[in-house]
């Protein structure tokens, strides 16, 4: 089983924290409100376990923007909102008095734009200290429960491995990094937003990630 040392986990969490800091700044500017961040949680889990972790946090219908990235470091970043929250975000960004039907129509397009900005800020900062290169695929808009969002068959990294090796990737382990955020309710009690960011890596990516972490740590 793939293991990260305590120090490697610590470093990974700190990079995640830095990435989320940048992402929160982008979101904060968009919603003109402070975004409060939780402490990062990290777990090396299978994709199935990852789905269960998400269920524990939210079991209602979720809306997500998924950004796959590939190259030296392959994986998936997800920006997830509980369903009602995403409409709230769209309302905050567009107009307070927009009818629900119009909001719903604009939900996908708006969230893709927002997700793109936030996840790019996050991933660029996350990899700032590493020497790996990667490229983004187009962001996707997803709606469903947590099992669906982390579905192994739709997960790019797992899918590629499955296709290449002809193996069932169910037992693949992934690093799952998760962090909650919510907007400050000091100013707009009725319009607080919350959601979370999840980062998944395939096992191949984990090997590269571990190598990068070791290089960085060996210089300190």
């Amino acid at each position: 089983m793939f293991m990260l040392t305590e120090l490697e986990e610590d470093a990974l969490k700190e990079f995640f924290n830095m990435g989320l800091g940048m992402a929160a700044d982008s979101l904060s500017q968009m919603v003109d409100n402070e975004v409060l961040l939780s402490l990062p949680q990290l777990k090396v889990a299978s994709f199935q376990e990852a789905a269960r972790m998400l269920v524990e946090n939210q079991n209602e219908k979720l809306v997500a923007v998924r950004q796959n990235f590939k190259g030296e470091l392959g994986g998936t970043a997800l920006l997830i909102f509980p369903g009602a929250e995403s409409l709230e975000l769209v309302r905050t960004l567009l107009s307070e008095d927009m009818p629900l039907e119009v909001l719903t129509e604009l939900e996908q397009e708006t969230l893709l734009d927002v997700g793109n900005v936030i996840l790019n800020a996050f991933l660029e900062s996350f990899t700032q200290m590493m020497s790996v290169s990667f490229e983004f695929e187009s962001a996707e808009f997803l709606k469903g429960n947590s099992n669906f969002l982390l579905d192994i068959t739709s997960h790019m990294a797992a899918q590629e491995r499955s296709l290449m090796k002809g193996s069932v990737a169910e037992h693949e382990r992934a690093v799952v990094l998760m962090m909650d955020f919510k907007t400050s309710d000091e100013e707009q009690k009725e319009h607080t937003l919350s959601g979370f960011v999840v980062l998944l890596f395939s096992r191949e990516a984990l090997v590269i990630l571990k190598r990068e972490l070791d290089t960085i740590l060996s210089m300190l």
Partner: protein
Amino acid sequence: MESKTALIVDDSSLARMMVRKIFATSFKDWTLKEAKDGQDALNVVDGASLDLALVDFNMPGMNGIELAEKLMEKQPGLSIHLVTANIQERMRMRAEGMGVGFIKKPINPQKISEIMSVLNG
């Protein structure tokens, strides 16, 4: 010359290691005290006089702003800097409103040098 003392408070070992390396390389005459959270910091300081405190914001227990307030009570006039990944404008304003410096992570030698030049100036 009497050795000066800096305190670094961060729940991340990596973040503390980065600061430790910068001090070991560029500010060898400084003594560095380390703490992993606010409570630990208050125990580590325990009445000792500091010349500089570098404090993370997002930590278990009290956050960096709360810790800065306590450090200010203990030692008015202490040079305190929030070293954080949380770079939102409101956070910066809150810190600067209290007279606390604001440094974006990751920390690097140049950022510490800038603080030192103000301290020595």
